[in-house]
């Protein structure tokens, strides 16, 4: 996929987010999300006198997120010399300890991990990933929902849609005609636009498994699919990352929804990473800052996964977050999270990871071989700063022009 095409896809997504005007038709069921107290809506809009017309605390959080993003970018570009230095100079221990540390370094830097247990977990994760949508569809059907429990079915057509979901779930669980399953998942996602663009954006992560189904053979029922090849993994990583990126912007845009969830489950506000991003902000805008910090953190992790920078690290952070939401914060109501968890485990335990930064690294290597240190600095520093700024600020600025208080 060319970089121009990737940029094109991002523009389509951004346009969809900005141009839509439909309210999300989420319901007060399963995870409760009614606001207990009104938010300070002025915080999210234009703020006279603030930097770029934004609230200073919002800019503070965004700057912090951009800094972390830049730091990870920078470390990514120099990861090889760092790991080599640590392994050869600091950890000259030899034997099993050195092998274990080498595996750890490989894990953290998205290199293949040659380990039997790692490989076995990876195989199991693929099986769970390919089948978990079937369980989620069954769960949704029994709860009068479509695809996800937060999308209630229309009573008039509920019966048919429930049977349709069960039929698709059976195909998935028996691994029958996976290309057809993929087409049905994508087609169902397209149908979600009937209920508004926010619903469809909310369901983007569902498409992750579809990219594997679509590229599977028709005779899938005769195969034990336990590995995902490099091309499939690239697509999985891309769609999964893009899904989280979109969800992050949706949280910033539709602030009432996520603030309402936090009002009903205050424990989700106790997160160290989010706490770091919103440290030092005005306590008067505590909930507003949390919404922005949470949304931007998701955008950052989604972007890292899309681009393929420390994919395993960000994947592990997200697995922790989803597991905490499932087991600690919401309990049974979030049982469909088995799907994103299994998708993330598939990515984490894959030895087929790649990165979209390869062209930049090739330029950097060429400059290094030619001995052009200033050019290296410009390539690495320039791409880091540009990425950090572009990912966070432009859309945050544009969204502030929209009044979202009534969503």
């Amino acid at each position: 996929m060319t970089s121009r095409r990737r940029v094109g896809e991002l523009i389509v997504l951004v346009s969809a987010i900005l141009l839509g005007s439909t309210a999300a038709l989420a319901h007060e069921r399963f995870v409760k999300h009614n606001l207990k107290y009104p938010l300070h809506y002025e915080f999210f809009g234009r703020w006279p006198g603030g930097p770029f017309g934004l609230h200073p605390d919002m800019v503070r959080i965004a700057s912090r997120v951009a800094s972390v993003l830049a730091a990870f970018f920078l470390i990514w570009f120099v990861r090889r010399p760092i790991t080599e230095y640590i392994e050869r100079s600091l950890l000259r221990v030899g034997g099993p300890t050195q092998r274990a540390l080498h595996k750890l370094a490989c894990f953290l830097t998205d290199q293949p991990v040659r380990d039997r247990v790692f490989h076995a977990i990876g195989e199991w994760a693929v099986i769970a990933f390919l089948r978990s949508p079937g369980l989620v569809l069954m769960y949704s059907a029994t709860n009068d929902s479509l695809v996800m429990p937060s999308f209630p079915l229309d009573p008039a057509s509920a019966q048919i849609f429930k049977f349709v979901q069960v039929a698709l779930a059976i195909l998935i669980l028996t691994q029958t005609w996976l290309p057809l399953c993929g087409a049905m998942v994508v087609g169902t996602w397209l149908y979600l636009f009937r209920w508004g663009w926010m619903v469809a954006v909310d369901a983007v992560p569902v498409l992750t498994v579809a990219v594997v189904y679509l590229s599977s053979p028709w005779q899938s029922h005769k195969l034990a699919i336990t590995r995902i090849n490099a091309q499939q993994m690239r697509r999985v990583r891309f769609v999964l990352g893009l899904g989280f990126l979109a969800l992050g912007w949706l949280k910033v845009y539709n602030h009432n929804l996520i603030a309402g969830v936090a009002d009903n489950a205050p424990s989700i506000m106790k997160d160290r990473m989010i706490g770091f991003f919103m440290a030092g902000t005005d306590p008067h805008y505590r909930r507003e800052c949390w919404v922005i910090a949470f949304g931007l953190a998701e955008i950052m992790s989604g972007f890292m996964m899309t681009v393929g920078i420390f994919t395993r690290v960000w994947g592990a952070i997200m697995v922790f977050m989803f597991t905490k939401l499932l087991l600690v914060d919401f309990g049974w109501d979030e049982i469909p999270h088995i799907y994103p968890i299994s998708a993330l485990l598939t990515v984490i335990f894959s030895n087929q990871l790649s990165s979209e930064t390869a062209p930049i690294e090739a330029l950097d290597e060429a400059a290094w071989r030619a001995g052009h240190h200033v050019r290296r600095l410009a390539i690495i520093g320039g791409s880091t700063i540009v990425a950090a700024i572009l990912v966070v600020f432009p859309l945050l600025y544009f969204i502030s022009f929209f009044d979202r208080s009534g969503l």
Partner: protein
Amino acid sequence: MTFATTKQLVLMTALWALTLFGIDYAKNPRTLGQLLAPPGALSAAGGGAPVITLYMNHLCCSGCLSDVTTALEKFKALTVKSPSLESEDEANMVPMPEAYFGKQIELEVSDLRYVDFMAIDRALRDAGLVAEHIELRGPRHYRLEATLNHMCCKSCSLGAKEGLEMTRGLKSQGQFKWLDSFDVEKERKLIIANARYDAVADVGEFLTALNHAGFQPSAIVAMTNAEGSPRPTPP
């Protein structure tokens, strides 16, 4: 091994999406304007001022209406929109076909927070009439909270929950279309029915389901604020 071609994948995806849209349209026929409008924008229920519609199976003349108006005049938050009816004298002189006995009365609501549907039902019954259906339209996102004087133990809350499970089955028969989900709060002695977005709730159906489960609510109110908020005291 054979793989699907891009053409096949695009075709299958498009066909499947069209099938789902087709099912949806067949079950919910809409005009082109409604099809192109954002969901909820053209709903008969959503976004407007709250209106309560009483479906009276007997409301033949101005005498009946007078009794209804008198019964409801004590509710400050309600204004009866009188339908055009024949006078008592006309009704005495000209016997009308059975189909003409039933009428709907709309009640304009100035403040939904102070409307108790059980009080409305009681007032009508005391006047010798009854509304088979009491429908609420207007608020986009709301819930009905039924207060039960009796909910002494865990078995009561379990019984209420199990009893209301019948609403799931009845949905497929065209009833409780407005109902999204329900909760039972033993501590506050409440049964909460969460209405679907933009839905027209039938309080009569809710009351019947509660009665079927063995409970008689002392009050049923529609709430649009946060769950757990205290109920306002009528002025």
